[in-house]
């Protein structure tokens, strides 16, 4: 991880909302290197969205410093915005319509791409996200999950270098989740796209992230590490209003009963571990 | 109340024509006055208030032909130059849905924005005297609406020659009464049959007495909305001054 280009640095920022709610994003420095997949886990209202809004220059920190691609987003965001795709938590107002197709075309056209090129990009992303059947639909007639998908398409269409996603899986059905995960991972693998997301689905964390941050209280960042590492230290998680992933809980339970298989995070891993132990046992 | 819901083709051409010219002139003037950044920053608020005005205007409270205007609330939030732009947009959209004609957009904009602009200044003036949001908002709305109704009557008055001409040369009964009935929807008008000439005084009496109800209602609604905004996001009310 060392030596890679740092594209995001957040240095202990304080935000005070108009009603005096104070969110202090501090503790650890929040750093993202190019090509990393970063997740942020934390309880409701701990400040995840607040952090992301600072990265986008939508909020102005009272204290502290934010750098995105080396610039201060509150001042110079327009310079980097073409390189950043965003899906915010509240998806309704992000869709500008009138139809799904028009909405996806919005960014390419407004960034001044040629019409033909813009259409090509839009069609590619529609294909990728399986939105063909919704193309012509008016955006205000979509179901909750459909809106989320359209917003994702709008963020992906410009093939950005950095994706900022606030709870992208919320409201998606399981298959769409799986598809989204594989799209994101593919983008990361093939084009080196960096992404930062918040989520509540602990079971998915290990599939979509290299680096996991834990946040609690009002913005306190207290852990940074790989998902394996952090879920390994299971005792602390309850403080973060978190649960361990299902597999971790299963294998911890087994350990308590005297059966120590290890602590896998993925199903195939888990199967291998159990199988191995089982076969080992057979031998003697 | 001050909305002229005239269909196209009834006011004299010179009247609505000069309405357009004046409206465009004022729009041009305002666009010189306002800073570009200010404008873009307040566009979302403008869009939302204009949308609220369109929706309000298209829901008629039937028995008194009254509809919610929200011009004063918008005027307070947006300031004089933006409210002008907003009412222009509102009238154009309403016209596109057949609510009110396309030819009268200019006149409507002048009258409606006058309401918003006056409301804006009244609100600020009264606020210096008392800091109680409900009475201040109510009074500003009431006054602004009544003044704009007078201005509407003035506009209608300008067309009298035209109505009389129509009344006598073309059909026997006149186009002027259209205006009159518009404003007094649902009221019986008995002496009407007798009159062959445009009776402007009676017209005024009816518009003003019905208008009075409208001013009261709009005043109540506006003050409730402003109270809510004052409680939640007071900074919106003074955004203009801080610039």
């Amino acid at each position, binding site marked *: 991880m060392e030596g890679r280009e740092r594209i995001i640095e957040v240095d202990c920022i304080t935000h005070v909302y108009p009603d005096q709610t104070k969110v202090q994003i501090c503790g650890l420095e929040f750093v993202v290197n190019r090509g990393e997949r970063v997740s942020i886990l934390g309880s409701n209202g701990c400040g995840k969205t607040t952090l992301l809004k600072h990265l986008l220059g939508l909020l102005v920190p009272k204290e502290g410093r934010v750098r995105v691609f080396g610039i201060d987003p509150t001042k110079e965001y327009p310079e980097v915005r073409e390189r950043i795709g965003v899906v915010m938590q509240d998806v309704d107002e992000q869709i500008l319509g009138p139809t799904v197709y028009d909405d996806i075309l919005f960014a390419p056209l407004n960034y001044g791409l040629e019409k033909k090129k813009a259409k090509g990009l839009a069609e590619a992303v529609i294909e990728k996200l399986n939105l063909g059947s919704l193309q012509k639909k008016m955006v205000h007639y979509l179901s909750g999950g459909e809106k989320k998908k359209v917003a994702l398409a709008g963020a992906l269409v410009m093939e950005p270098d950095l994706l900022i996603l606030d709870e992208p899986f919320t409201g998606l059905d399981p298959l769409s989740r799986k598809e989204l995960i594989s799209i994101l991972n593919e983008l990361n693998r093939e084009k080196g796209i960096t992404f930062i997301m918040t989520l509540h689905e602990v079971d998915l964390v290990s599939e979509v992230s290299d680096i996991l941050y834990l946040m609690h209280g009002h913005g306190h960042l207290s852990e940074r590490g790989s998902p394996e590492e952090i879920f390994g230290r299971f005792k602390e998680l309850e403080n973060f209003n978190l649960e361990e992933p299902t597999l971790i809980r299963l294998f911890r339970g087994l350990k308590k009963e005297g059966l120590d298989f290890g602590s896998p995070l993925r199903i195939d891993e888990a199967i291998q571990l159990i199988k191995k132990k089982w076969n080992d046992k057979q031998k003697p | 109340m001050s909305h002229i819901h005239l269909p196209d083709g009834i006011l004299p051409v010179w009247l609505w024509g000069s309405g357009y010219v004046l409206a465009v002139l004022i729009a041009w003037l305002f666009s010189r006055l306002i800073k570009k950044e200010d404008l873009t920053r307040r566009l979302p608020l*403008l869009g939302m208030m204009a949308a609220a005005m369109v929706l309000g205007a298209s829901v008629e409270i039937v028995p008194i032909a009254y509809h919610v205007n929200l011009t004063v609330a918008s005027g307070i939030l947006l300031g004089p130059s933006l409210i002008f732009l907003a009412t222009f947009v509102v009238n154009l*959209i309403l016209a596109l849905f057949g609510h009110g004609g396309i030819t009268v957009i200019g006149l409507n904009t002048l009258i409606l924005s006058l309401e918003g602009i006056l409301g804006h200044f009244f609100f600020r003036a009264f606020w210096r005297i008392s800091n109680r949001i409900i009475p201040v908002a109510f009074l500003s709305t009431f006054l602004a609406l009544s003044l704009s109704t007078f201005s509407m009557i003035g506009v209608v008055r300008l067309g009298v020659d035209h109505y009389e001409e129509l009344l006598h040369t073309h059909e026997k009964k006149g186009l002027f009464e259209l205006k009159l009935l518009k404003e007094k929807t649902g009221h019986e008008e008995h002496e009407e049959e007798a009159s062959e000439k445009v009776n402007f005084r009676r017209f005024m009496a009816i518009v003003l007495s019905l208008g009075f109800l409208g001013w009261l209602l709009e005043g109540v609604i506006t003050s409730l909305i402003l109270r809510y905004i004052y409680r939640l*996001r007071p900074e919106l009310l003074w955004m203009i001054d801080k610039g």
Partner: protein
Amino acid sequence: MIQISYLDYLAIEGGSFLHRLSPGVKILGIGFVLLWVTLLRSLTGLILLYGILLLLFFISRTSLKVLPLTFYPLLFATLFIFISHFQLHFILLVFLKVLSAATGVVLLLATTPYPFIFQTLNRFLPSVFVTALFLTYRSMFILLKVLEETQHALYLRGGFQWKHPWRSLINLSNAFGHLIMTGINNSEKMYESMRLRGFKNRIHYRSD
């Protein structure tokens, strides 16, 4: 107001020749209709005009559901007739003027998606104005949704009951404030996302 979204739907989904006609031509057409309506005093001329418009209405297979929209301005015309000694000639004249203008406008909206109309206006109106138009239009849908869901919430949670008129009135007035506030918040979010997605000072659209 539900008609707004329905008109939109018709405009986007329809495939008649009127839908395919360039918006500029259609707007010119409207200008022509209005000119006719303003200047004409002869019944036959107006009947002809209205007939043409109705014909277009059917040729473009525009749903009859939006036809009532063209009757809205008749409300006033009817009242007007009420005091005019009920001369048939005069009644017809006023009705036809009003109907023709309204039918023309509704026809335009039912066959042309709004961005196209705004875009065409963009040629002779300043871009700020067109952007404001666009924002207003989108805000209308946002507000309609907020309106609908606020209504639902009031209904589901017993906010409006004839049994308790006073409470209901208080709830309603609060809901009004809530509605505007939510609308303002939402429009700000919408604007943020426009900026995040490349909006500078004017909207670019498919028809550019």
